[in-house]
Every structure is written in structure tokens, then in C-alpha cells.
């Protein structure tokens, strides 16, 4: 009985350690690797008990943090391929270059300036008001969303919000934990080390379901209100660092509120009411400064994207 309680305590502590530790800094699995058995006073956990705890801790660890940057990249590509199968990208060189310059100037000052495959931004030929961020940094903005942007700073606000979703891994979090747990257990089998085989079919099935989880969230259900709030707050930080007007986010939302059809299948469906988002932003904007250069930026915005 006492043994069982202590075992639970260890498990609890392991979980705490996992929660406390950042995903890139700590690895309880490795830390525990060297332990073998644990002796505390008269109490001893055998090697197999430690092993069992380690497995549980690792399963949790994996589900939350062990999607490697490379795997996130492949998830992002598939989500991107799904979106681009639905909407055509605008390929006009000048617009592409401009959008990516704005995007890069934001991503570079963020807390995650680089991703495995890098940040890439594209305009979609779609009149609905939409913007999507696929895991790993592929970011999509619809023509309808662009029309909510009066200048470069408001466009930057849209992109900063999407960059925030990438960094906060909101897309990946839409994947059901059970899928990842299954994927990791397949990966752990010996067979998975060789190419092909039944494991590949199984993994592909899980991959397909995972992509569905992410795209369904992006296109239909939307993220939680808390995630959107978090992305808005992060966007303000990014805008401020880059030298853009932080108030542009509220400005963009005001314009969106005017244009959004509340019954629409776009942002109206997947995001909180812009008016509510503005209210939540207000305290964060109390000390926002008006940065220089806004007129020059507006001019180049008009000359490149004004006619779209």
C-alpha cells in the first residue's frame, strides 16, 4: 500500500517535472535513463518500476513535445497542400515578394525566428475573410482578408497573428493526443526502422487523421478563444519589436467587423467576434506608441497590393 502510494508520488513528481520543464531544455526520459533503481531512505523502487514510470512519463512527454521540427514540417506541408488544393495562390512576383518581406520582418524579431522549413507567406484568391497558419510556418492570407487591411501595418498585424499561431503550436495541438501516442508506439517498434512495411501504412493512416484534425480546426471549428487571445497578445509583441504600429491590430479588427458577415463560413465562424477581440486588446494597447514611417509603408502597400 505504502509502496503504491510512493509509486504514485513518483509518477506525480515526474509529471510535474515534465510540466515545469521547457520542451527544448529538459528530457525526463534521459534524466531517468541513468537511474536504474531508485533508493530513498528505506524505500526502494526497483528497476522495472522505474522503467514503468519512465514509459508513462515518456508517453506523455512524446505526446506533448516530441513531434520533431521535421515531423511538424511534414504536417505543415500536408495542411498547406490541402488548403492550396482548395484555394489558388496568387503568384504575381511583386506581391509575393512584398508579402514575404513584411512577413519575414516580423518572424525574424519573434521568439522563433526560424522554423525547420522557414516561414513562407502567400495570398489566396478567395474573397472570404480568411487567414491560416499551417504548422511549421506556411501562412496563407485570403484576398478578402487583405481587403480588411488599409496599409502595411494592418497587413503586418494579420501576419503577426498567424506567426503567433505557428510559434504557440496551436495547429499541432489540434491533433488528438491519442493519434500521436499511437504514432510514437509504432515508431518505437523495431520494424519501423526499416523502410516500408505495415508500419508505413499505419503511420500514413495516423498522418491522414492528424492532417484532418488540423485542417478541420483551421477551416471549420477554429481555435479556442484562449488560443486566439494568446495569439493576439503575441502579435502585439511581434509588431512592437518590428517597429510596426501595434494599434493596427485593433484597426484591422474594426475594419473586419464592418466587412464580416456574421453568418459567413470564414473568420465569422472560426474566430471570436472582432469587437470582443478589440475589447480584450485595449488594455494591452494602453501604452502603444505611434512609430515613424507609417506613411512610407502605406505608400508601398498601396502601390503593390492596392489594386487587389
Amino acid at each position: 500500500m505504502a509502496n503504491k502510494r510512493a509509486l504514485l508520488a513518483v509518477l506525480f513528481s515526474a509529471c510535474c517535472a515534465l510540466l515545469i520543464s521547457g520542451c527544448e531544455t529538459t528530457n525526463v526520459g534521459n534524466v531517468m535513463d541513468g537511474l536504474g533503481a531508485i533508493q530513498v531512505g528505506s524505500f526502494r523502487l526497483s528497476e522495472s518500476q522505474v522503467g514503468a514510470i519512465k514509459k508513462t512519463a515518456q508517453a506523455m512527454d512524446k505526446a506533448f513535445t516530441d513531434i520533431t521540427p521535421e515531423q511538424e514540417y511534414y504536417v505543415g506541408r500536408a495542411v498547406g497542400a490541402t488548403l492550396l488544393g482548395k484555394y489558388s495562390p496568387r503568384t504575381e512576383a511583386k506581391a509575393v515578394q512584398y508579402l514575404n518581406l513584411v512577413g519575414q520582418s516580423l518572424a525574424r524579431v519573434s521568439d522563433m525566428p526560424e522554423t525547420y522549413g522557414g516561414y513562407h507567406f502567400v495570398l489566396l484568391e478567395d474573397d472570404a475573410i480568411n487567414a491560416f497558419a499551417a504548422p511549421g510556418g506556411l501562412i496563407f492570407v485570403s484576398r478578402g482578408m487583405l481587403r480588411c487591411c488599409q496599409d502595411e501595418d494592418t497587413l503586418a498585424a494579420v501576419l503577426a497573428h498567424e506567426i503567433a499561431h505557428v510559434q504557440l503550436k496551436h495547429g499541432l495541438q489540434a491533433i488528438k493526443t491519442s493519434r500521436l501516442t499511437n504514432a510514437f508506439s509504432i515508431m518505437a517498434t523495431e520494424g519501423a526502422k526499416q523502410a516500408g512495411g505495415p508500419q508505413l501504412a499505419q503511420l500514413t493512416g495516423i498522418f491522414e487523421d492528424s492532417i484532418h484534425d488540423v485542417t478541420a480546426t483551421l477551416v471549420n471549428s477554429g481555435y479556442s478563444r484562449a488560443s486566439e487571445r494568446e495569439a493576439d497578445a503575441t502579435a502585439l509583441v511581434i509588431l512592437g519589436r518590428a517597429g510596426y504600429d501595434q494599434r493596427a491590430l485593433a484597426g484591422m479588427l474594426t475594419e473586419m467587423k464592418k466587412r464580416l458577415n456574421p453568418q459567413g463560413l470564414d473568420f465569422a465562424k472560426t474566430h471570436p467576434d472582432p469587437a470582443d477581440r478589440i475589447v480584450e486588446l485595449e488594455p494591452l494597447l494602453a501604452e502603444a506608441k505611434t512609430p515613424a514611417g507609417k506613411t512610407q509603408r502605406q505608400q508601398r502597400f498601396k502601390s503593390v497590393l492596392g489594386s487587389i
Partner: protein
Amino acid sequence: MGIPRKILLLLLFCLLATPALAKQEWLSVAVRNGALRQQPMPFGKVVASLGYGERVDVLAEQGLWLKVRDQGQGREGWMHRASLIAKAIVLKPGERVRAGASEDELALGGKGFNAQVEAEYKAHQKNLDYASVDWMERIQVSQEAMREFLAKGGLQIPEGGNGHGK
């Protein structure tokens, strides 16, 4: 008796779990093209590009930036902390980077959702446009274009930046 034990164990685990980064002698590059910069700044001059899985030794740190030396060629520069990971990355299945590498480390290498899974997925799905994704990934902005864009728009000063992250 049960309670002190729990506390003891909690302490033990906290102690074991926290100093992992400090103890780790090297880090792996977690991105495909990791910019090694002359200064610890977002737009600092890029002196080299390090690939996914390359190992670097940490020489110094400043806020979110780490001064590193790559183990392969000894190049030195600053990398953003978010582009590095405290785990071994094994690029090819079956390849072992060092004796005693754990399964946990190996799990990072090329397994799971990879190019092979993508090919399989692509073959069985309709309405996917991977060609456009490939096109999108090829979009690059040059250092010069970036510099000019920032300067003309009154944004961050290219070389300086605000060195945020302190």
C-alpha cells in the same frame, strides 16, 4: 510517513530534471537552414548556415541568443535559442551518432511523419496541391532586399535591431 516521502521524491525529481540544459555540452540545430550570425541580433549578418541535426557547442549566451561553435567545421557565431534543441538528431534510421544513444534520441531521426509517409499520403489523397507548397517553400527574400525594405519603411535598423530578448 507517506507525506515526507512524497516531498523527498518531488525534490529529487525537480533536482534531476532542471539542470539538463546546463549539463548538456552540445545542442542540435533544429531547423533546416539555421542562420549563424555575426551579432546576437535578428538581422545580424549571416556568416554561415547550419543544417538540421548539426551539433554545436555553446560558448556564451545573451538573452535568447547563444554563441555557438559547430562541431563539424568550427565555425562560430550567434544562433537563436529557438533554433536549437537539447537532443541528438539522427538523420538516417539505423545511424547511431554515439555509443549509448538512447531510443529516445533515435526517435528523433527521420522516423514518423517523414518524406516516405508524405509520398504514401499523396498517393492516396485527392485535391492536394503539393506543387504549390513546393513553390511556396522556394520563396526567399535576400538579405539585401530585407535590409532595403526595413530601412525604407522606417522599421528595425538592419544591422542593429533592438537586440531584443534580453
